[in-house]
Each structure stands twice: as structure tokens, then as C-alpha cells.
């Protein structure tokens, strides 16, 4: 860290942002809540809570079914959210936006609807070592079903994934490349554009797990050059139980439906059913309508922000946290890739992360402790678990100072 470069004073008004998040005003064990677990699930602004509340109070009915007023209003809200989300990530059309329960379901959809019909024994699915379990297990299941082989690209001791190392594993048999935009356990940002370009040149289909990226980066799916992009509502200030699979229309068109049921068909007879058009072909059954409405409001919230200022604020938080935590005796940061996102995984000598989590909770500080659904990452760094503080636009330097002080006290108590 070059200390000669003082952090640029940010025009970002964190106090104003915090007022938009009612939960941040609460206390935990008598202390002000310091919520440093947005990587697991971010909090909701008033506008998202209000949009869901208004929908429940005024507009709820089933969508795409009725001619009555409420059904039309609900449909307009649901499809309106789809259009705004398509613009938000720069999809070519709302037909490329499939609503799912979350990133996990999106990846499973691609594995089963795109991968299963097309993969043959000996074909390869390429992922990286730092993936979340949700970007490992669906591919393992697919490989068991098809006889394809799972190939894992390495990371280095800093937790960085080098494009050359991934490219070296792209073979004539590679059919799919799936990787995280940002690692949830380490914060590493992957070289997406270079990897998608290399994959495209070899005819390899790409899926990006964007769960950690959408809250922090401006995501342009066309610019990124990916075939599929998956993300979750609740990590970007929206509700749980709703997420998005973006897919290039030409690919989605070719894919068979994933689940059968209502809303995904045009006509049904016992002899044959005719499937609905995109994206409804992939949305069987009554969806999470209020969740989609909330997700649309979360997109509006993010677009109302100065994203550059948010990014600068988050970088300052990460730099401050890295400095403050590095000053704690016996603390080791896990994952030190250059340019990483605003989260910090660490272990403290003599103090198990689980004890840290309990002690910090006593001070009102919420962090994630455990394997972060990334057991291969834990094995790589030879730790059973880590503590992870993950930051969002509403976090403050003061919260980070409290974190560092509390970690120091935990070490004094336990070690």
C-alpha cells in the first residue's frame, strides 16, 4: 500500500445512505449494529421495503392470467421490473432475463437445460479453484449425468486466478467455462473479458457467477462478452428468493425448458404441449412476484446512486480495513489478490473464527465465519474456516475500527 497516496476525500454521503436503511439503526446486545456481512446478504433500503409493501397492499394477483385489474397491474409491475433489469445489465432484450430463485438456481438451470442435452462423455467443464459450492456442485452433478469431466483451473498463493492458467486448460473438449466474477471467500476479481474472449475464440460457452459483483461493479453483459450471467436479488439490496439468469437469446431459444408447468406453455394436450416464448419458457409456475417487484426497486435504488462514488467509498473501506486489521497481532489476511473487491477474509492465531464470530456479535458486529461455501478454498489455504468482513456502501470507518478493536479483544481473551 503506497502511504504517500492519501485517500481521496469522497463526496459520498454515507450518513444519508445509512438513513435509507432502517435496520442499521437497531442495536444488537445493546451496541449499535455494525453490519459487515453484506457479502452473505445485503440489507434493504426503504424504497425496496416500500415497493414490496405497496405491491402487497394494492396490486397483488397472479400474473399473465387474468383480465381483471389487479392481475394486469401485477403483470405490469413484474414485466416492468424485467425491462429495468435488462437495461441495468445492458441485455439486448427483456427476453434474455429469466427470473429464478437466485444465483444457485440460475447455475443449475444452465447445467441441466444447456449442459445436460449437449455434453457427451469426455467433454470438459472448466471452473476455477475459488468457486462457491454453487458453481461446483451443479457441474459435478452434470458430469455424473453425462460422463463429462470437471476441470479446475488453479489460483496462486494470493488467491488470484491468472487468465493464462485458465486458458492453458481450455482444450478441444472444453464445452463450458463457468467462474465467479468476484470470489465470495477472497474478494478476488477475475479477468472476465479476457477469459470470455479466449473462450469465444475456442467456441466455449461461458457462465459468470455474478452474485458478488452486481452490488459492487457496473455489470454490462454485452461488454463482458459472456453467454450466461447469474446473480441474486438479496446481495444487491433486494429481497431473498429472487434472482436473475441472463442468457444470450440465441442460446436460450435452443435450450429445452427446465421445469414443466403453468405459464411456460402456450397449449397443452395429452399428446403434446407447445412451449411458451422466452423468457416464460423458463418460468414454470407462479413466480416470486413480490420478490421481482422488490428486485426492480433495488435496481432503481442502485441506479439512483453515483456508482463511481460508491466504488471509491468501498475501496477506501477496504484499504482502511486492511490497515486496521493488519495491525492486530497474529492476524493473517486470506486472499490478497491485487484490485480485490471490498471484503476481507482473515484468521487470527489461537482464535477459531467461530469464537471470533460469537465475541464480535457480543459487540454488535456481524461478520461471517466458516468456510463460506468454498471448502476447496479453505483446503488450499490450509485453514478450517475464516472470518470474513464484507463491506457495502453503507459501512463506515468507525465500524471498521470497532471490528479491529473487537478482534484484538477476542485474541486477548481466547489465545
Amino acid at each position: 500500500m503506497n502511504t504517500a497516496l492519501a485517500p481521496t476525500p469522497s463526496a459520498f454521503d454515507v450518513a444519508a445512505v445509512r438513513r435509507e436503511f432502517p435496520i442499521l439503526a437497531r442495536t444488537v446486545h445493546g451496541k449499535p449494529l455494525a453490519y459487515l456481512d453484506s457479502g452473505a446478504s445485503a440489507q434493504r433500503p426503504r424504497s425496496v421495503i416500500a415497493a414490496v409493501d405497496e405491491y402487497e397492499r394494492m396490486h397483488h394477483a397472479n400474473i399473465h392470467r387474468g383480465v381483471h385489474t389487479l392481475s394486469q397491474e401485477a403483470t405490469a409491475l413484474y414485466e416492468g421490473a424485467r425491462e429495468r433489469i435488462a437495461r441495468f445489465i445492458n441485455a439486448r432484450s427483456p427476453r434474455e432475463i429469466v427470473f429464478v430463485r437466485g444465483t444457485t438456481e440460475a447455475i443449475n438451470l444452465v447445467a441441466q437445460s444447456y449442459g445436460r442435452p449437449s455434453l457427451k462423455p469426455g467433454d470438459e467443464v472448466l471452473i476455477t479453484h475459488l468457486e462457491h459450492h454453487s458453481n461446483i456442485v451443479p457441474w459435478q452433478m452434470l458430469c455424473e449425468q453425462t460422463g463429462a469431466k470437471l476441470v479446475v483451473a488453479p489460483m496462486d498463493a494470493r488467491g488470484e486466478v491468472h487468465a493464462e492458467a485458465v486458458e492453458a486448460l481450455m482444450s478441444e473438449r472444453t464445452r463450458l467455462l463457468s467462474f465467479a466474477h468476484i470470489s465470495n471467500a477472497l474478494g478476488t476479481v477475475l479477468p472476465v473479458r479476457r477469459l470470455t474472449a479466449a473462450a469465444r475464440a475456442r467456441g466455449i460457452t461461458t457462465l459468470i457467477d455474478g452474485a458478488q459483483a452486481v452490488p459492487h461493479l457496473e455489470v454490462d453483459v454485452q461488454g463482458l462478452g459472456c453467454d450466461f450471467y447469474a446473480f441474486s436479488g438479496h446481495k444487491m439490496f433486494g429481497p431473498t428468493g429472487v434472482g436473475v439468469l441472463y442468457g444470450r437469446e440465441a442460446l436460450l431459444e435452443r435450450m429445452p425448458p427446465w421445469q414443466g408447468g403453468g405459464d411456460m406453455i402456450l397449449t397443452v394436450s395429452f399428446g403434446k404441449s407447445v412451449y411458451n416464448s422466452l423468457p416464460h419458457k423458463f418460468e414454470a409456475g407462479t413466480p416470486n412476484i413480490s420478490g421481482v417487484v422488490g428486485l426492480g426497486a433495488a435496481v432503481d435504488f442502485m441506479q439512483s446512486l453515483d456508482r463511481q462514488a460508491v466504488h471509491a467509498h468501498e475501496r477506501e473501506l477496504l484499504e482502511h480495513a486492511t490497515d486496521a486489521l493488519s495491525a492486530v497481532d497474529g492476524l493473517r489476511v486470506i486472499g490478497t489478490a491485487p484490485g480485490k473487491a471490498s471484503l476481507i477474509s482473515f484468521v487470527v492465531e489461537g482464535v477459531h473464527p467461530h469464537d471470533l464470530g460469537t465475541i464480535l456479535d457480543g459487540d454488535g458486529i456481524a461478520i461471517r465465519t466458516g468456510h463460506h461455501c468454498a471448502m476447496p478454498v479453505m483446503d488450499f489455504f490450509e485453514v478450517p474456516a475464516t472470518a470474513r468482513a464484507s463491506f457495502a456502501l453503507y459501512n463506515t470507518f468507525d465500524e471498521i475500527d470497532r471490528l479491529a478493536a473487537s478482534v484484538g479483544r477476542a485474541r486477548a481473551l481466547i489465545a
Partner: protein
Amino acid sequence: MELTDLYRDVILDHNRRPRNFGPLGDANALAEGFNPLCGDRLTVRLNLADDRIENIRFEGQGCAISTASASLMTEAVKGKTRGEALALFDRVHRLLTDDAAGAEDLGKLAALSGVREYPARVKCASLCWHTLASALKSPDPHALPAVSTE
């Protein structure tokens, strides 16, 4: 909730200096425990003579609650019969989960009662006991019964 009620001196001491920690050469019963929530793993090895625990040692990595509980357990069950050890497991399990359970006659194990105020940590304290019970029920060291708290 006071943290000092969870992290009592006995717990902190047994975490820093776990008793009966390490391999056991002449073990004739063994089980491995795993808590997928936190990644804790431990191995409990026993030397059973007839029905009695002649010796017991444990290895593994875990949080302070998990390590101290395993250390306290090895001290408490050494010399006990299989039935006595399993009965003690029942007592400890009640102590960890039932607010009304008393700690009379439990000796140092009573220090674990603070855990019941922290539901997320009960599995940390009970993992070693589940592992011990598994080892006692299938004393073939080659059977390697794996125990999970999930």
C-alpha cells in the same frame, strides 16, 4: 448474555492446554466427527478393555468450545464403562440444550452450561460427545464411522 459465561476460565484453560490431546497408539476403537457448519474435525480414539474406557485421546481442530468440551470429556469418561459414558453424554446433552437441566455432580463439565445461551454453538460442544458415542457403539477401528452434526 455475558461472554464470560460462555468463555469461563475452565473452558479457556482447556482450549489453551487441551488434555489427552494427540494420537493413541494402542487404540481399539475410534470415530471421526465433522461439523460442516464451521469445518471442525476431530478424531476420538479409545482403548476399551472389556466394557471400560482404559484410555481416551482426541485430535483435531476446532473452536474453543469444541476443543475444551473434548478435553473435558476425555477427563470425565476415562475409567468409566460404556454405559456410564453414554449416560454422561445424555446428562451433558441435556445441560447444553435444556435450561432446566442441573449441573450437580458434573464437576468441571458444568462449565459447559453457558453454551445453552448460544444456540449456534451447541453443536460445537456436542460434536465430541456424538463422536465418542459413535466410537463406543462400533468399536472396530477399521470401521471408521464418520459422525456429522448436520
